[in-house]
């Protein structure tokens, strides 16, 4: 899809704000996990539903997703997406400090099964990461931006994302998405933060960035 020059310029402005917010999200995840979290260069892309699904690894890729809606001054959806094995590793890192002497380690079934503790830890990881992103993104806006209560789901990426895409693409055929991959610590946990703002929210953000 060919974007208009004005739209490209606007997307670049948003990109700068998103990059800053992604840095904050990485710092927050690092603080929570006690690991050094590095991020790949954030990818900001305007694309179709198929393009967005590709950012999440493809429609049939099984993922653990922490979903939160974006509420307040901005509107949209955000997801922290992890391959199941990486999600188990991140949960283990997060829960390590909570296990007392003699407490049993996590016992799990299949790779797609997450117990209550793991789910809770990963929900918090998503909450902290998405909140940090939105706090930074919302600086300068008239009202705060916050996530809704996060939900954890283990499913095919297409199944997780199609309701979100349905909500954002009803009256258009492309949207702006931002993706960054996190790598946490020596145990190498890779995850993707996917942020999908509603088109009208981009206008609000642009007005804030340009001081209007």
């Amino acid at each position, binding site marked *: 899809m060919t974007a208009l020059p004005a739209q490209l310029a606007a997307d670049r402005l948003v990109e700068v704000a998103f990059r800053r917010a992604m840095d904050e999200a990485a710092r927050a995840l690092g603080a929570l996990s006690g690991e050094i979290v590095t991020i790949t260069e954030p990818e900001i892309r305007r694309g*179709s*539903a*198929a393009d967005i*699904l590709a950012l999440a690894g*493809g*429609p*049939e*890729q*099984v993922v653990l997703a922490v*979903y*939160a*809606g*974006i*509420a307040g001054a901005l*509107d949209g*959806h955000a997801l922290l997406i992890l391959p199941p094995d990486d999600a188990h590793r991140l949960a283990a890192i997060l829960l390590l400090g909570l296990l007392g002497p003699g407490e049993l380690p996590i016992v799990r079934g299949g790779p*797609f099964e997450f117990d209550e503790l793991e789910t809770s830890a990963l929900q918090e990881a998503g909450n902290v990461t998405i909140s940090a992103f939105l706090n930074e993104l919302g600086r300068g806006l008239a009202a705060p931006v916050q996530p*809704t209560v996060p*939900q954890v*789901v*283990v*499913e*095919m*990426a*297409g*199944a*997780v*994302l*199609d*309701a*979100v*895409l*349905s*909500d954002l*693409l*009803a*009256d258009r*055929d492309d949207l702006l998405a931002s993706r960054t991959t996190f790598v946490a610590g020596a145990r190498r946990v890779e995850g993707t933060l996917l942020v999908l703002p*509603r088109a009208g929210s981009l206008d609000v953000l642009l007005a804030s960035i340009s001081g209007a």
Partner: protein
Amino acid sequence: MTLATAPGILAAGIGELVVSGRPDEVLAAYGLGSCVALVAWDATARVGALAHFMLPAPPPGTSPAAATPAKFVESGIEPLLAAFRSAGGDPGRATFRAAGGAAMLALSSGDLAIGRRNAEALSAGLAARGLRLAASDLGGSQGRTVQLEVGSGRLLVRSLTTTREL
């Protein structure tokens, strides 16, 4: 757009439709959540078609892009039937099956029952044309992948935990 998959597999992305009269081909839609896949198969002509619908109906004043004729159920059934006919299929003797329409997430905005509404729009759209579903796997809260073997008409519906024939 057709998703890149294994040779012989024609995959419909969101809003797309695929059709085939080749018995060695497979039509597929991957990772359906609230989306609904409608499959038509003509046992006599050995022709199959599959549409990957995203929403029940277009918002007022909008229409789907040429690349995504099956974005909306309401406006997408006719293009599916037209493609099916063009490949030699006869909707009058075809069987129609559908899968998807799940509720995966409680979204913070938008239509919370989009999967159910997609399924309802599909049944209504078929009924308006004198057609009906012979079998379906709709609703629930699990993702689904569907695959139609064009030669045999076998339709497999796969979730994370099960694979069943529809």
